């Protein structure tokens, strides 16, 4: 049972605080992804779990034991680095066996574990090669194999796919997803790529500027982002934020005026505090929820800015009244001329509402299926 528990963990470099009090409970065998923009502290947080960075204050427990001061090798972790970090002068076999050798395991155990890891990753025929004779994807497999050989309680991945080309990245991502079921270990995975986060994670931890913005399952975060940052970070193209004004506030209902004057009524939990008629709000709509006007509850009109053809779909960018940009997903092959007037619809059931402080105003209804 390898839970990882963080209690008010902070990290400072001199006067600069980069991790500002993180509380997190990671369950045994859970796959948790730290995601955030560059510089948000996600790698630092991972390295603190690994023991490669000191914890300035707060506590870290792995498997029930407080490990703030423990060496990386005593924490029962294994780490896969972005640059693979294979020992260049050792063969693949020696690379994978190095940790066990240092731990003075006997030859038979080492042999057995290395062979087993190599079999899982299908790199058995590479065992005698040197890292420089391997391709990027093979190197990454060896790095993962080295981690598996250590038989850790917790796997730590630091952006393991970002040095691979696009095709290999998808393939390796699938491999990691498969490993997740095969290995009896907890996994923490750092990435800036939201697709990796969405596809791999049991739970996603969105970090921004050293703080946890939201923790939850991928769909939870996608459907009910707690604030503007999370809403804007997950999803591609990102969620449309439309500046709007609250018009009438009734118990359980809020009507907002969109640019151009259309009204949209949303069911909200009671007690949305501080919102009165005239309060500035942000309505969030994902591009796939910007529908043709006849299917929407409110209609927004504007002029076409640009159309992007992605083959499987196309994206229509339009500029609305009040000089705001709205993106709508459409079927492939959409044709539209620049500046051509166009109307789009917004469905009330698919809208997110954010107050002036950037926090989501809770909706009363369950998320759309």
């Amino acid at each position, binding site marked *: 049972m390898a839970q990882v528990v963080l209690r008010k963990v902070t990290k400072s470099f001199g006067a600069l605080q980069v991790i500002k009090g993180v509380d997190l409970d990671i369950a045994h065998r859970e796959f948790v992804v730290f995601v955030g923009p560059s510089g948000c502290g996600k790698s630092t947080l991972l390295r603190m779990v*690994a*023991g*490669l960075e000191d914890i300035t204050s707060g506590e870290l427990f792995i498997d029930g034991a407080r490990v703030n001061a423990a*060496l*990386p*090798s005593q924490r029962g*972790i*294994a*780490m896969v*680095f*972005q*640059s*693979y*970090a*294979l*020992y*260049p*002068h050792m063969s693949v076999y020696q690379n994978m066996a*190095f*940790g066990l050798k*240092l*731990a003075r395991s006997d030859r038979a155990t080492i042999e057995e574990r290395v062979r087993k890891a190599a079999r899982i990753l299908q790199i058995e025929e590479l065992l005698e090669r040197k890292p*420089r004779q391997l391709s990027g994807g093979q190197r990454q497999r060896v790095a993962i194999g*080295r981690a598996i050989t*250590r038989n850790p309680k917790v796997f730590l991945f630091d952006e393991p796919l970002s040095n691979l080309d696009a095709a290999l990245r998808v393939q390796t991502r699938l491999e990691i997803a498969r490993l997740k079921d095969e290995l009896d270990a907890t996994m923490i995975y750092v990435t800036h790529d939201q697709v990796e986060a969405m596809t791999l994670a049991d739970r996603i931890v969105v970090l921004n500027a050293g703080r946890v913005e939201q923790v939850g399952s991928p769909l939870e975060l996608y459907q009910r982002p707690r604030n503007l940052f999370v809403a804007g970070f997950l999803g591609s193209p990102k969620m449309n934020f439309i500046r709007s004004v609250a018009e009438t506030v009734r118990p359980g209902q809020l009507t907002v005026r969109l640019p151009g004057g259309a009204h949209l009524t949303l069911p909200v939990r009671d007690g949305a505090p501080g919102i009165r008629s005239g309060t500035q709000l942000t309505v969030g709509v994902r591009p796939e929820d910007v529908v043709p006007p006849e299917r929407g509850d409110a209609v927004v009109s504007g002029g076409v800015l640009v159309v992007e053809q992605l083959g499987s779909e196309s994206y229509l960018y339009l500029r609305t009244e009040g000089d705001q940009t709205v993106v709508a997903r459409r079927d492939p092959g959409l044709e539209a001329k620049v500046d051509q007037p166009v109307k789009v619809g917004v469905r009330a059931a698919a809208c997110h509402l954010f107050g002036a402080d950037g926090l989501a105003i809770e909706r009363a209804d369950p998320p759309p299926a």
Partner: protein
Amino acid sequence: MGARRAIGRILFYLLVALIIVYTVFPFYWAIVSSLKEGSALYRVDLFPPHPAWGNYVGIFQQQNFARNILNSVIVAGAVVAVSLLLSVTASYALGRVEFRGRTALLLTILAVSMFPQVAVLSGMFELVSWLGIYDTIWSLILSYLILTLPFTTWVLTTFMRDLPKELEEAALVDGARPWTIITRVFLPLLWPALATTGLLAFITAWNEFMFAITFTLSNEKRTVPVAIALISGASHFELPWGRVMAASVIVTIPLVVLVLVFQRRIVSGLTAGAVKG
């Protein structure tokens, strides 16, 4: 066009030939002189008409030159071993560990190598007699470290700093302590740098003269450069050029062999880190 290019090439190779003659001729002249005896020394011959090996035999028979060579080998070997051991460990600290005053320390190390030898000579002499190692090869091993350690440490620190940080971290996660990281992860990657700096340290110790003549007194404690300088003839008025040259040729050969053996290592050492491996 063709003619101009041809002239350019001719000039280029003339320049190359000039440089080669300039650098190799003194050594060639030493070889030629070492093969002459008696008054033949004072005739100018590009090739000795009657090569004679008497000088080579003479330096071993008339004095204990073998002992001097052995001393030089021991001193230079010990200096290389101690300098590399100390500078590898020091460069790990200076190159990989963050601590206050690291830059100041590095600059101090560099500053030490800027002192002229004469400046430290008398202080070193006091130290040597206080330690009671005057007229032993220990005094030379100790004093040569002053000459070699600054640059071996400096060069190895540069190399050490360029090794990827992730390698060290991967080793840490694998359970390696600093000593294991140095010996089993970094050293194999530092071989080219070790060969280069080790060779330079060896040459420095092998050729050093001033400390050697100051700190040793008896003939059987002397190293090769001093022994050569003190080779004497039958009388005060005769300088035995032939034997001096023969001795010089003998002591140059080990250096040439070493350079040839480590040549490929040196080249890769000088260019290592230039391209991503």
